[in-house]
């Protein structure tokens, strides 16, 4: 465990209890730069984990280090971390500009610098036109965006985003995702919690799956999927004679299921041994001249892995 690694967010045996209620239990993790998604049903511990990274709550036991800084030192930590919390709440009576500017002043920037950063942040989220309107008069999507702008205005290296896509329309959502990608590519740590699994799938470099306070799996989604041995892999083969392929497959023990897709130009199969299947497929191609257009795993996305590991109850949240 590289607890002192200055390029990682690390958790060492971290637990957090709320009285007798479990928040997070014995979590040991390392989060590298890039986009990391926290996935789990309500109450699985996503927000607890994020709040602990930001120093808003303390672990009951264990140790956390954010790029080498302990969250118990907010004076150092808050220069590194920007947090867009899930709460749709703002200090009263402020315009979008004043909201960002006021909190930037607390970072010790000079007024001109605060002004520049405020404008830049508002520009990034497309709110420059509404800068002088009161936040209370913003739509839900605009409030979400101004929170995002406030979280990144001081140029943090670690960006924690709790359900950042909530309330955004599809266009704003795509723009937000592009921003996350940009920050991730810049080498920032972007930690995102989201229940919109197909979007998590698109943006994440790695995922952390949580359930009832435990980390169920972590890593790149494809690696996580291959670790789930008890669930047969789904593979979609687009080819000219799916029936022929199916007939050859039924003789194999590792193939659990095979069905021809609706357009009759593909076969969706479930196998317990993907390597054996690929060998067999090669043999079929050689023996019968099967023309294969594409072969792709059909269930190594977050949604499938999530369902396998956490169950349908979690996926529905």
């Amino acid at each position, binding site marked *: 465990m590289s607890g002192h690694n200055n390029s990682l967010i690390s958790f060492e045996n971290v637990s957090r209890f709320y009285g007798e209620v479990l928040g997070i239990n014995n979590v040991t993790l390392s989060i590298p730069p890039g986009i990391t998604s926290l996935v789990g049903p309500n109450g699985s511990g996503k927000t607890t984990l994020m709040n602990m990274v930001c120093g808003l709550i303390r672990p009951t036991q264990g140790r956390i280090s954010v790029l080498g800084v302990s969250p118990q030192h*907010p004076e150092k930590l*808050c220069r590194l971390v920007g947090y867009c919390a899930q709460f749709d709440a703002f200090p*009263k009576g402020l315009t979008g500009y004043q909201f960002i500017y006021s909190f930037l*002043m607390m970072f010790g920037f000079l007024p001109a610098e605060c002004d520049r950063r405020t404008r830049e942040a508002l520009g990034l989220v497309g709110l420059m036109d509404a800068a002088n309107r009161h936040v209370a008069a913003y739509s839900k999507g605009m409030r979400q965006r101004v929170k995002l702008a406030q979280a990144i205005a001081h140029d943090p290296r670690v960006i924690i985003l709790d359900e950042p896509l909530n309330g955004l329309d599809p266009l704003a959502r795509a723009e937000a995702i592009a921003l996350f990608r940009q920050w991730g590519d810049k080498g920032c740590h972007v930690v995102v919690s989201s229940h919109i699994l197909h979007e998590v799938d698109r943006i994440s470099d790695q995922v952390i799956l949580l359930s009832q306070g435990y980390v169920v799996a972590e890593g790149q989604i494809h690696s996580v999927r291959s670790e789930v041995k008890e669930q047969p892999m789904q593979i979609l083969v687009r080819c000219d004679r799916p029936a022929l392929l199916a007939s050859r497959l039924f003789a194999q023990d590792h193939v659990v299921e095979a069905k021809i897709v609706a357009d009759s130009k593909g076969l969706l199969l479930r196998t317990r041994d993907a390597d054996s299947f690929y060998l067999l497929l090669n043999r079929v191609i050689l023996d019968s001249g099967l023309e294969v257009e594409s072969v792709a795993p059909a269930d190594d996305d977050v949604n499938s892995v999530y369902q396998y590991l956490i169950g349908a109850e979690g996926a529905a949240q």
Partner: protein
Amino acid sequence: MRLELKKTFLSKRGWWIYFLALGPVAITVLHWLVEARLGRGAGNRHSIGEDSIIFAGMFLFYYLRAGIFFGAMGIFSNLFRAEMLEKTLHYYFLTPLRRELLVAGKYLAGLIVAVVLFGSSVVLAFLTIGRHFGASWTDYLLHGPGLHQLGAYFLVTVLACVGYGAVFLLSGLLFKNPMIPAAVVWVWENLNPFLPSLLKKISVIFYLKSLCPVEVPIPPPFNVMVVDADPTPFWVATPGLLAISLILLVYAAATARTTEISYSD
């Protein structure tokens, strides 16, 4: 500070604090207008001395025991508690400001608001209570004890805001419902005249009362129940009160240092 001042001065929730502060001014202005209309010489109903005792009574029984007490409760206990209720405290906790400094900044903002509201209220009420005496009142102010009394009342007001401010800032951090500790403190402060000498000294009002320039006669039957304690001299009362406030503020800062964001509680 600017953000805090704006929020506290313009808080819709705090309209009643303006009412507490401006109420006595409205009464003294009314008193002035009525007396001026009736004519000073017409009834010759009271003297400047009587008005100064009435003001002393108003200051002790209204300002110190109610107006400033509840005003400070409204201003200071909300500095952190309102942020928790409105789910905005995390914005402050996510700045690289030491929590101790945050407590000091919020306290200072609250103090400015409290002193501006209640200090100006005391000054205006004092200036207007005897205004109907005309030149005699001006003479009382400029060449008599008036200005000294006004200065003393203002100082006591500031000290009351300092002391009660520290009490309520801390209670806002420690308690989910600051009304309960406020009620306890209020009962304790109001029982003060009837407490034994030693216990009297564990209160804010005892020191403030010692600093008031005009003594208020206690009417019967309360006068027989009041336990007399030696008034604390200025050089003990003022630093003593400031020291108690500082201790409370240090404790509040230490509490803020370990406060966690848990809005659902």
